[in-house]
């Protein structure tokens, strides 16, 4: 099972991003390990400067703002 991390300190956009990914994965029937990272040092460790950010397999694929639904679908079909 692949791991997707959502990095963010708990603002509304971070929660929305998490929900969007969850729904997209369920719609595609893909099982993912979705983790929310709130620890500041870990967020910063990824070199991310604006949250929410998305990390797939330890690679930052997105940072700043809620990602588009189509982009989320692309991630899911590219990586899984």
């Amino acid at each position: 099972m692949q791991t997707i991390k959502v990095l963010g300190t708990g603002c509304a956009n971070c929660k929305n991003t998490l929900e969007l990914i969850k729904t997209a994965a369920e719609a595609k029937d893909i099982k993912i390990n979705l983790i929310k990272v709130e620890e500041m040092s870990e967020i910063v460790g990824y070199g991310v400067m604006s949250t929410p950010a998305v990390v797939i397999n330890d690679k930052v694929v997105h940072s700043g703002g809620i990602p588009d639904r189509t982009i989320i679908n692309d991630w899911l079909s590219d990586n899984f």
Partner: protein
Amino acid sequence: MSNATIDTSQQKSNALFYWIGAISLAIPTWFYTYSQLIPFADFILSLTGYDRSSHTGEAIHFFFYDTPKIMLLLAGVVFFMGIVQTFFSPERTRSLLAGRRLGVGNSLAASLGIVTPFCSCSAVPLFIGFLSAGVPLGVTFSFLIAAPMVNEIALILLFGLFGWQVAVLYLGLGLTIAIVSGMIIGHLKMENDLQDWVHDIHIGKDLPVNNALMSWESRFNAGWNYVKEIIYKIWFYVVIGIAVGAIIHGFVPEDFMTSIMGKDAWWSVPAAVALGMPMYTSAAGVIPIVEVLIGKGAALGTTLAFMMSVIALSLPEILILRKVLKTKLIATFVSIVASGILLVGFIFNSIL
């Protein structure tokens, strides 16, 4: 799968075509609607049976003129700014600021603070991201002070409600505070007052930059999403603000606030800053209060000082920054910015 790919690219070029069409229609519509605001308010008023010579009539006219005006201004400017922001990712801004000297760097940082998308929940990662890439501490602070305080929403609201002079003053003073405060912090050489874990972080240089090759279609989408986000977030405050303004316009005596917040009450400026600091709301949230203050005889300097202290200094932000700054640096930051705001309030009240 290949069919799906072709469909997507087809959809994309259609979408760009659609955007250009929609925008070329929207621009003349926008200007025409803007020119019809007064006739519209007159028309609504004529339906109620009141006329502008009565308090109630004046209040109704004020409300139905100002609400659509502010909404139109917001929609237009926010869409434009949403597109501009796609050219200024934090990563790009950081590389523009890395290694800049104090002075030039601070001015650039404060100006970039206006156009770089910023949310106070990202203040810490941004702060560390800047420092680790070699942006000097003082320059980083100029950015962090300007980004929340001087933003398009505050400027549009001030422009729409109080005229361009107030908006320009706010812009100039906000930038000055950000630049000067950052320069002072830079000169104090307080790099040792960062929390220890911050020094240990080394971020690789090969960071992803999402929007290096962004299509125009996604830029337009970003602009539109920004409009939806902002309108959704602030329409309520704007309507309340204008409603409050409309009511006091006719009903509360003009000089209600003059004795406590007028020019002659020198202590009103520090009181406004002290009151504003623990408050935490966006530019839109503070507008109803500002509307009341200015409408009822509070001095402009006092009111602007209040607004700046609400937006630029807030307890939640200080708590967030506490994770990266030691107490001494936090205290320095707060007192320098607060003094800047005080100074603005005093200077204004004495010259106007």
